[in-house]
Structure formats: C-alpha cells, structure tokens
C-alpha cells in the first residue's frame, strides 16, 4: 500500500500574455504587402511613384474601398454579400434618374434606398433562414434586372453635375474628396465597432453563431444591420462612380464584385467570419486597385498581366492571413 507521495507544489504556470513581435508583425502584414507592391511598381516604372499618380490611385480606389468596407461587416458576421456590385449599378441608375427631381438630396436618397434594399436582404436571410450566399446571389440578378428595366437598358447621362461636384474636388489639392469620404466611412464604422458592443456581437456571430445566440447577443439584428450598411455603402460607391463617369448605367459596377471580395480577403479578413477588420479591407482594396491599374500602366503585357495578377493576389493573401486566428483554411 503506498501512501500518496507529495512533491513540491508546482510553480505558478500563469504569466500574463502580451502580443509577441511576430504577432504584431502579422497584424501589419496588409500594410507591408501594400508597400512592397508599391515599391515593386515603382521599380518597374519610376514614373509611377509621382504624387499625381498616387492621387489617381487613391481616387480610383475610393468606390472599391467603400464597397469592400460594407461587405466586410457581412463577412465578419460569417455571411457573404454577392449583391453589392449589382446593387451599386442599380444605385447609379437611381441616382441618374432621381437627380433632376431631387437635386442635392439625391445622394441621401440613393444611400437610404440601397440601405433599405440591403436591410431587405438581411431580413430575408435571417427570417427565412436562407444562406446569405443564395439571398444575395438572387438579389444580384434581381437588382440587375430592375436596373435594366428602369434604365431602358442604357446609360443615363447626368447633365447636372452640381450635385456630385463636391466629390470630385481635391482636399488641399492632393487628397481626392472621394478617397477622403471612403476613409471617413471606414473610420466611422471602425469607431462604432470599437467603442460599442457591436464589435463583440459581430465577432461572436461570425465565430460561433449558436454560442452568440445562446449568450443573448442580438444575432439577427446584427446581421440585418450588417446587410443594411453593406447596401448603403453600395449606394455611396454608386455616387462616386456617377461623379466619375457623368452617367448611370445598369451594368456600371458589375465587374467590381470579385475585386471587392478579393480586397476583403487580401486584407486578411477570414472569409469564414469573425476575424478581420475594416482597415484591413482598406489596405486590401488599395492592393487590388494597384494591381488593376498599376500592372498595365507600368507596361506589363495583357496576358502576363493576368498571370501576374493571379500570382500576386495569392501571394498577398499568403502574407496577410493571420493563421493563428483561422485554424482551418477552407
């Protein structure tokens, strides 16, 4: 019979955890990717690194930044919004149609309308329990059809430019107003997330919806809100596009869907939800814009441009994704 043998008490194994240098570095990866890409482009064509060129990049990226910012919220909740581009196109048509009657109020009206449409999709998602992929895929084709019909399948010229003039200005002669607006959108959304419980609700929903619900988080409300913001952002992006093109068209933004989702992923936000942030999407959108306009401008031939685009975008994600937060990569 052995008596229990006691040895010395174990040392306290608990020490406070602080982020290591490596962890800090991973959270800055999107910015690093951006800088590396910019440097590479500058090497390929030194003319690319001029102020006017960078200003143009910023201006170009604004609609994409806004689209990506809105959709990021949906992705953080664990869903996806495939309708942003089609909704944005529809919004350009709205804008062009309503401008003669509403004048300066058109911007507000368009953003409100797309926000409401987004909310509608959110409600369909949470009430009918249809996966967001399907709801927004359906939304995509429905919005495209509506846009075609109300625009008579053609672009609508915007003659009165006063309503959008402000967005084409440059602050201090350098920073495009549209980019500033995009930054403000990101900033405001990020502040709301950071300062209120919304962030933990969104993350909890994205990481583990059932746990969030059983903890009494307003899961449905948060999701509907995310879709609403995503819709409103699509409306705002539409205003930017119209101010740039002087017209609204039923297919104007359709090709921005994949770049917007790519921007989110390149920023390092997990497509499965929970992990990520808005400023990551900002960096991602800038990377994607640089690739879209930078490669051809520095003289990469069309065929190689696509191959490079494919390779770089994968490499960028390889760099930015924080794998300690996302255990299984699907």
């Amino acid at each position, binding site marked *: 019979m052995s008596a229990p043998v006691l040895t010395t008490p174990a040392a306290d194994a608990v020490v406070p955890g602080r982020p290591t240098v490596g962890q800090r570095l991973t959270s800055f990866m999107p910015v690093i990717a951006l800088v590396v890409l910019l440097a590479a482009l500058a090497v390929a064509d030194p003319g690319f690194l001029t102020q006017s060129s960078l200003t143009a990049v910023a201006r170009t990226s604004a609609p994409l930044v806004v689209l990506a910012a809105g959709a990021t919220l949906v992705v953080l909740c664990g869903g996806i919004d495939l309708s942003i581009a089609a909704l944005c196109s529809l919004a350009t048509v709205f804008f062009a149609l309503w401008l003669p009657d509403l004048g300066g109020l058109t911007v507000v009206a368009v953003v409100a309308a797309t926000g409401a449409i987004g909310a509608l999709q959110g409600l369909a998602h949470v009430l009918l329990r249809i996966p967001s992929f399907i709801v927004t895929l359906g939304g995509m084709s429905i919005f495209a059809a509506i846009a075609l019909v109300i625009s008579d399948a053609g672009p609508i010229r915007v003659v009165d430019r006063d309503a959008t003039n402000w967005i084409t200005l440059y602050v201090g002669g350098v920073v495009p107003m549209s980019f500033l607006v995009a930054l403000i959108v990101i900033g405001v959304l990020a502040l709301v997330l950071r300062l209120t419980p919304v962030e933990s609700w969104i993350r909890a929903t994205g990481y583990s919806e059932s746990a969030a619900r059983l903890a009494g988080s307003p899961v449905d409300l948060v999701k509907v809100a995310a879709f609403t913001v995503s819709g409103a952002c699509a409306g705002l992006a539409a205003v930017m596009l119209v101010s740039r093109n002087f017209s609204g068209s039923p297919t104007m933004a359709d090709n921005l869907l994949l770049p917007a*989702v790519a921007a989110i992923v390149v920023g390092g936000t997990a497509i499965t939800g929970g992990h990520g942030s808005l400023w990551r999407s900002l960096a991602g959108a800038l990377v994607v814009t640089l690739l879209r306009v930078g490669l051809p401008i520095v003289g990469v031939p069309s065929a190689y441009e696509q191959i490079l685009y494919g390779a770089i975008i994968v490499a960028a994600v390889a760099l930015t994704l924080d794998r300690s937060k996302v*255990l299984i990569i699907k």
Partner: protein
Amino acid sequence: MTSPAEAGPEVVHARRPQHRRGVPLRDAGPPIALVVIFAVFAVLSPGFRTLSNVQNVLDAAAVLTVVTCGITFVLMMGSIDLSAPGIMGASAITVALLVANNRNDNDFGLLGVVVAVLLGAGLGCLSGLALVVLKVPSFMTTLGVSAVGLGLATLMFAGVQPNISDALLEGWAVERFLGLARLTWIALGCVVVGWLIQRYSRLGRYAFAIGGAEEVLALSGVRVAPYKVAVFTMAGAFYGLAGVLVTSQLGAGLVQAGRGYDFSSIAAAVVGGTLLIGGRGGILHSAVGVLLVTVLTNGLVQIGVSPYWQGGVQGLIVVAAVAAAVIPQRRRNQVTK
C-alpha cells in the same frame, strides 16, 4: 451511405437522435421543385413541352453539368472554386490548337483532348497546392488560378482565333445518339463517374468528410492535404473537359469559353442542395440543380419573358425554391451562414 442531413458544420450536434436512412424530405425539395417548374412551363408554353425542346434543354445543360460535377466535390469539402473561367479558357484554346485546326498543322485528335484535360487538372492542382502549402483560402487561390488560366489562354490565342476542323470533336456537338448530342452523353457519363467517385472512392468520401469535420480527420491520422489537392485537381480536370466541350460546340477555341460558369455552377450546385458550408449534398443533387437552372433559362425564353427580366425572375425563383426547401427544417438556434 445514408442520405446527407443536418445543416451545420458542427462536430458534435447532439440534437434529434433518430436514425436517418433513405431520402428525407429535405433532400426531396429540389427534385420536387424541378418537377413543379417543369410542369408549370409545360402548361404555359406549347413550345416548351415539345420533345425537341426537351432535347434542347438537355443538350444545353451539358457543359454546365460537367463544370458542376467538378465544383460539387470542392463545395462538399467546404471550399469554393472560382477557377472555372480560367481553366476552361486555357483548355479550350489548348485543345483547339492541338486537334486539326487552322492555326497549325497539329492533328492529335483524342490525344489533344487528353492534354487539354490534363492541363485543366494541372491548373486545378495548382489551386489545391496553394491552398494546402501556402494556406491561402481557396476563394483566393482559385481566383488567382483563374487569372493565370486566362493569361495562358491569351498567350496561346495570340490574336488569331483557332478554328477546329477535327471530325471527332465537331462530331461531339453535332452527332446524336438516341436523340441527344454526344456531348450530352459525355456529360451524363461525368455524372455517373462523379457519383461513383463520391460513393465508392476514398477520395470522394474523404472530400465529404473534410466538409463535415476536417480537424477530426487529422485526429484520425488521415493526412488531409493530399486529398484536398486531389479534389481540386479532379475539379480542374472536369473544367478542362468542359472547356473541350465548349470548343466542340463553338467549333473554335475561345479565351472566354468559361465566362460566367463560375457563379452559374455554384448556383446550380447550391440550388440542388450542395451547401457551401460543406459536408452536404453530392453529384446527384447538383445534377438536379443544373437541370433546374437550365429549365428555368429555357422556359423563360419559351414563354416569352422579356430578356431584361429573365435574370431577375430566375433569381427570384431560385431564392423562393431554396426558401421553400429550408422552411420545414427551420430551428430556433439554427446556424445560417
């Protein structure tokens, strides 16, 4: 195998302990929707219910079916695949340049087809490798590979459309057997092969399991990575074959041969009940989904819906069909992503 069931990727979901074998109601949703929609169109349009139109629908579904066969396995794993446009473009041009054509003196016939399919497999393998080695989500790797495929296709295209004059390949689109084009039989063959793989091969069952609980496979000592790569490779091969089929239909190798097939194949698979979270659905589900989508496209033209509205009506019907299918299985604390 029993039927797929239970939405949700959870490892341990202890609710509702009943044995489920046979086809539960939820899986019957898409086939029922197909029958209903078919019946509605048949009543509304005399042109729709002709035999030749049914043949037309089946023929029109061929390429989408082959693409969807590939993507189904990827979706079953819970991954996503957007590489179809690029891979199909590359394989379409490749096969057009390898069989008898107007650009060069090649006349490799069936060998050319095989090479194009292998090219597709290679590109698919690339997505898979980037996924498991670089740990980049498949959304991105496949988007990247699609761009690479389009780039390769543009390089090979070199400004002059390769037109094929290969009798075999042209025959696929033209010659009929039992009223259906050979292409359609090839697509049917793909469904059968896909089903056998899904049901009887380790690859297929593991793909299914990866979608259900990837981490558990690792705990059981299964190395998941090779299977993932293999699934993407197989999907790439299907896309490659689809590119060949498009070339056979169009009589020419087009860089844009696969345009739009990424989303339409995912939509078809999802409508059929292969959900994006993985671990659910299968080839037969997807085949039903493809038929549903094709019948819709065809029927809307036949009953004369304005081309402007067609997309919208299709979207509405798809959402309504899925909603009708999920309503009976709604639960309070159900996870819907």
